[in-house]
């Protein structure tokens, strides 16, 4: 359920949330009961990869490939932890 974010966890967006691209706002948004968060690019890049099947390790690797960057692990994990605390994500092992 809750737990710590590890490289083997498979995060997914909770059922009550809806993540989508909004052309009018030119941004991804996360919708929940009576509210909305507008996501910045990196938050959106991470959350759109949280499909409940992909592991954190694979998410990081994929992001590093698409952004031609290395060492993104700590930053991604910190954001995922934040998202779990916000109840946006749930973790499966």
């Amino acid at each position, binding site marked *: 359920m809750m737990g710590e974010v590890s490289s083997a966890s498979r995060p997914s967006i909770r*059922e*009550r949330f*809806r993540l*989508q691209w*909004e052309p*009018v*706002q030119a941004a991804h*948004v996360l*919708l*929940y*009961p*009576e*509210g*909305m968060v507008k996501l910045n690019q990196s938050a959106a890049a991470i959350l759109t990869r949280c499909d409940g099947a992909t592991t954190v390790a694979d998410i990081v690797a994929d992001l590093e490939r698409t952004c031609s960057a290395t060492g993104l692990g700590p930053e991604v994990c910190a954001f995922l932890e934040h998202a779990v605390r916000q109840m946006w994500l749930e973790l499966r092992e």
Partner: protein
Amino acid sequence: MNGAREEAAAHAPRPGPPLWLLLELTYRCPLHCAFCYNPTDLGSIGEELSTDEWLRVLAQARSAGAVQLGLSGGEPLVRKDLEAIVAEAHRIGFYTNLITSGVGMSESRIAALKEAGLVHIQLSFQDSTRAMNDFLSSTRTFELKARVAALIRKYRYPMVLNVVLHRLNIDHVEQILGMAEQMGAEYVELANAQYYGWAWLNRAQLLPSRAQLRQAEEVTMRFRARVDERMRIFFVVPDYFETRPKPCMNGLGSVFLAIAPDGTALPCHAARMLPGLSFPNVRQSDIGSIWYDSPAFNRYRGEGWMKDPCRSCAERSMDFGGCRCQAYLLTGEAENADPVCQRSAHHHLVRQAVEQAERTASGSTGDTESPELIFRN
């Protein structure tokens, strides 16, 4: 006067998208609440929009950037096409919320709504029926709500309860919360009645006294401490007891768009009462032009329309001068500061209403001056 209006509209800043869309699908309702927020002259409202017309509204609002959708009424379950409307709304990217009294909910309907993509249901306890006992004791109302609450849980919806508080039920907050707990509520909103529509007609009967309010808040705090995270409780104080107004709708025409059953577009569901405005109808205009170009939606945007004390007040960007409908109802002019504000020259009207409530509650007036409760009919 007219010139000033046009000028205000010309200076109105271009707003962001109408993020929040509320469709009042019908004013029909099997209940008769004394604090119903629907208009009191229901007879004069035009014909309800058809299914196709609602679907067109959804599509237009979605392209204008609307994302949150509230489906309310009246009782939205009265509409047989509710499932079709939800399905289309979900398909095109709305986050769908149903606001219902539960009357008319059955297992087959909730299953169909889930299938259609409905994500959220708010069960309202608005039906304090003629017999207050019926609301409080475990009779028909309780059984109905409990049955619907069980369906809501069974179909894995968050169990969200909204209870309208007023003088006649506020002393029973403990029982109400106990009932909510029994129903497995995750969120409970104890919202004091707001004084528009039918509630305005009944204000003298519905406004609680200060002591009642304090007591109810204490009970809520104790209850909250006991149930902790299991059940989150919001307590909304009636703004008559405040000294600053609420930032009503974040300013009219800034994020919220309501469509009445007959297609009238409103910047707040109570705004129909505001004088001198002709509200556009979705039968004649599309949502984009209604939102961005109609004089009625531009009328109270920005600060150009403000009078003193708001015009020169440092807090005007925080509360936008409060609620226009409340200013109009109490002072006769929508441009005045919301009289809830201590700085308003009309603040005494709010104080008087509260004082009258104190007297009536303590029975010291013999109650002869306060009229009978009028139930929505």
